[in-house]
Structure formats: structure tokens, C-alpha cells
């Protein structure tokens, strides 16, 4: 199971991590549309980390149990999201896309988990499985 962690602290990093994510998706055997979904979801999370999370890291992992898939963990140590439910409904859409990014990433992937608390940062885990 290969795993790589990259920093996302600025805009250059967003692009790098996207590239990396796309390659990982290609290598894992995902089709063109899924590659696009995965890369876009990564972009959304990475951007949130840079813009709202004061920087963080993205870990991309190919997972193989009884099914094969890709797992991305995005961590930041920013201010955290106070009202997760509101954010996921896009309630923070006025704050430059935080909620849109999260709900977007959720819609594009098969699994989505988020933990966040005020002052402690945010961790988002997303997964997509090969069909």
C-alpha cells in the first residue's frame, strides 16, 4: 500500500497535490471521469486547507483490502469549523467557498469523514473505490 504526504501551504502546493492525486488515480486504475472527480475533490480540500486552514498536508494512499480504492486525508491546523453541519450544507458559502468545497468533495467521492473543532484544526478523509 503506497502512501505519500505532501504539504499544502500555498497555491503552488494546490497544483502539485492535484497532479499527484491524478497520477495516483490513474495508477490505481480509475477511469477518466473518476480521475476528474478525485482530482477535483482533492483540489477543493487542498484549497480549503490553504485558504481557511492556514496550511496543512494531504496524504494520498492507494488502499487494497477486499476492494481497491484511493484514500485522501487532508489535515490542517487552522481555526477549525465551529458548525460542521452548517458548513456541509454550504452555509459558509459567503466565506469564499469553504462549505461549497466540502459539500462538493462529499458529492464527488464514495466516502467522506470530517472532524473539526474550534482552535484545533480540521481533518477530512475521502475515499473512492474501483467498481
Amino acid at each position, binding site marked *: 500500500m503506497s502512501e505519500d504526504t505532501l504539504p499544502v501551504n500555498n497555491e503552488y502546493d494546490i497544483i502539485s497535490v492535484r*497532479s499527484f492525486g491524478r497520477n495516483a488515480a490513474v495508477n490505481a486504475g480509475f477511469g477518466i471521469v473518476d480521475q476528474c472527480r478525485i482530482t477535483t475533490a482533492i483540489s477543493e480540500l487542498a484549497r480549503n486547507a490553504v485558504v481557511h486552514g492556514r496550511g496543512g498536508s494531504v496524504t494520498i494512499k492507494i488502499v487494497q483490502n477486499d476492494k481497491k480504492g484511493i484514500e485522501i486525508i487532508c489535515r490542517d491546523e487552522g481555526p477549525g469549523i465551529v458548525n460542521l453541519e452548517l458548513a456541509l450544507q*454550504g452555509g459558509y458559502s459567503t466565506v469564499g467557498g469553504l462549505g461549497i468545497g466540502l459539500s462538493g468533495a462529499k458529492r464527488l467521492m464514495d466516502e467522506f469523514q470530517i472532524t473539526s473543532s474550534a482552535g484545533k484544526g480540521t481533518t477530512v478523509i475521502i475515499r473512492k473505490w474501483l467498481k
Partner: protein
Amino acid sequence: MEIPILKIEDFLIVSFQTELRDDEIVKLREELLDRIKATNARGLIIDITALKIIDSFMARSLSSIATTATLLGAKTVVVGMQPAVALTLVELGLRIKWNVQTSLNLERGINLLREALKSEKDVVYE
């Protein structure tokens, strides 16, 4: 990264060739709007054939460029969206602001703009 903005008759055409950083997109937007003003362009075509990903930020940017350009007198069409990107954008969510007229390719885009200018009706987002 220099992105060339071409002028064909009274249209401006810009091609998004590579992955653009957020600050580059912002800069490009300013440049486009300046050029529209300077050349009195009646139409703007944004060619995104080479874009393999459009996330919510890019979608918002394209939308805002289109809206502002139109205000400045240049009707805007985005052309060449990849099928995978189209599907992903739709799935990304309806809350993404996307008030942009789209066409399959450059040729169609130009025809669309000519038609719209001829009848002087607004390029309608249906």
C-alpha cells in the same frame, strides 16, 4: 506564465492552456477586462479545451469573468469543456455559480456570438 489573448475582428479569444494558480487566474481576469475596455471588444471566447479540471474556484472565476465582461460590453462564451469535466462540474453541485454560456468548440462559439450580436439579443443562459 504568459497567457496570450488574441484578437479576431472584434472578439477576444483566450486559451487556458495550463494549470493556473489562483493568483494567475485573478491576474488574467484583470488583464482580460482591461483589454476588453481598450479594444472595445464585442465578444470574449474562453477556450478551456485544455483544462482537465475545473474546481469550484475556477468555476466561480470563469463565471465572474463572463459576467463582468458582459457588463463591459463583451458577450462571453466558454468553449471546449471536456466531457469528464462537464460531468464532474455538474456533480460538484448546483450551488456553484455558473451563469456561463457554453459551446462545443471555437467555431461554434464564434458563430454563437455572431448570431447574438446580429440580433443584438443577449446570449441567453437557458
